[in-house]
């Protein structure tokens, strides 16, 4: 094996850092967008055809660009935001552009599952649109939202492995540079094993939390 323990730990840390940070930023973007996608649609709380159509199209555009291309395409923007286009921090920008719209769609999906009757009951008791969103829609969808966000995190772990292409580091980078390019099968297997454990752990945690918040 051509790498030592500290290199593996560093790569693991980089993966966790990229995934964690980009998840938090993506959630900040995706949550409001997901809510807007639901409440501005026809017949809903704050029906607004223009807002809905623009969001719908913009999100579809971002969702249709493969991550590896997105990463390269927004390099100028990355440079403006983090000052460089290379490294772990620089990888977070394209990850957010990738996961933000994705999370918006996942959240839209979860919120649409909430029974329309519950919203009607909320309106009938005189709840404002804000109260309906935060006291009815989100609590009722919470269990499903947690599962959806788990999917997003797993997706981000996968996408972050590609960040090696712009020198982002992480387990994916390690697997490519040592495992693939230098034919080090042990490193390859080890990184894959770590990624498998990571994804299993995240999914189990997500399932557990989803059950926990079903009743609050």
């Amino acid at each position, binding site marked *: 094996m051509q790498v030592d323990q500290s290199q593996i730990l560093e790569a693991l840390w980089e993966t966790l850092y990229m995934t964690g940070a980009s998840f938090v930023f993506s959630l900040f973007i995706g949550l409001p967008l997901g809510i807007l996608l639901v409440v501005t649609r026809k017949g809903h709380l704050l029906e607004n055809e223009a807002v809905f159509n623009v969001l719908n199209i913009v999100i579809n555009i971002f969702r249709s660009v493969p991550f590896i291309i997105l990463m390269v395409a927004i390099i100028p923007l990355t440079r403006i935001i983090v000052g460089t286009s290379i490294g772990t921090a620089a990888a977070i920008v394209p990850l957010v552009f990738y996961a933000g719209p994705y999370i918006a769609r996942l959240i839209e999906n979860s919120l649409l599952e909430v029974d329309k009757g519950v919203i009607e*009951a909320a*309106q*009938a*008791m*005189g709840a404002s649109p804000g109260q309906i969103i935060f006291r009815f829609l989100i*609590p009722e969808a919470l269990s499903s939202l947690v599962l959806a966000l788990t999917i997003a995190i797993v997706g981000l772990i996968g996408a972050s492995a590609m960040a090696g292409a712009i020198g982002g580091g992480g387990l994916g980078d390690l697997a490519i540079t040592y495992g693939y390019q230098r034919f080090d099968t042990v490193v390859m297997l080890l990184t894959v094993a770590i990624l498998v454990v990571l994804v299993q752990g995240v999914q189990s945690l997500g399932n557990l939390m989803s059950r926990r918040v*079903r*009743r609050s």
Partner: protein
Amino acid sequence: MIQFEAVKKTYVSGKQQVHALNGIDLTVETGEIYGVIGFSGAGKSSLIRTVNLLERPSTGRVLIHGEDISTLSARKIRDTRKDIGMIFQHFNLLNSKTVHHNIAMPLILAKTPKAEIDRKVAELLEFVGLADQAKKYPDQLSGGQKQRIGIARALATNPSILLCDEATSALDPQTTQSILDLLRRINQEYNITILLITHEMGVIREICDKVAVLEEGRVIEQGSVFEVFSNPQHATTKRFVRSVMNDELPDSLLEQIRHNDGTRPIYRVQFTGNSVGQPFMSRVSREFQLDLNVLFGNITELQGIPYGNLIVEFDGAHAEIDRALASIRNDNIQVEEVQQHAG
């Protein structure tokens, strides 16, 4: 008081216009239990939703205590909605929250202090008979219990009006009865005006003071429950009344009527209210030398007033029968000959 004035509601779907409400004029007086009945698609659901503006009328006005709330600001509309409780066919409770939290919801929205909320929720749970279920979740309750929670939630803000949207349609007959009893208690103890929509005539007979029959977005018949049940005018109303009054003639009787040669004519005699107490049969029999043979009949009660319906065979001289009929009609009893094809 709720007043509908020429309320119309039109939905546009594609190039088609659907007229859900076609000019509704109705007045629900304070303290009344008013029932609106109709088959599905008649417009009941749209009608009840115009009261709290879940549906906005396309034209016309709905006045709540004399005020047209569609002209109010969004905030004022929300305030008015707090004075109008609503319960639903499928209860529409929050499955992620406890029974206590569900009932507390309208008070939480109104930013009521917690101690006050706890006191009110306990009182409401007591009223609907579920004091021991506060910590349970809706999916641990039966349909009837869920509707009781829905009712408690609707009453939390002390509304003056309660809207019931097919509130018993998802419940079995026995549970329906207990929910109707609860609604009657709410009406009597809190003097809350109740507007309910249903497709079950039994619900109307059981608790309503007045009824309107809705068909294709129009009120085709309205009046006190007693009037409408004892003397339905429209074919649809007759169908509804028949669904609970059981005055369908048995086949054997129909056979007998069919073979009636006219020597002993058969009449349907309907008597209501005060006329029920009269011994009209024995009087007519004596006075006009007739033999009266009751072939079929039932007597029931509507809003505490007895209502009877008899199928009677008259045997005697024709002239005497005619005189007897005139005399019976004189007593405000309805009589009509049962034709060969009648049923």
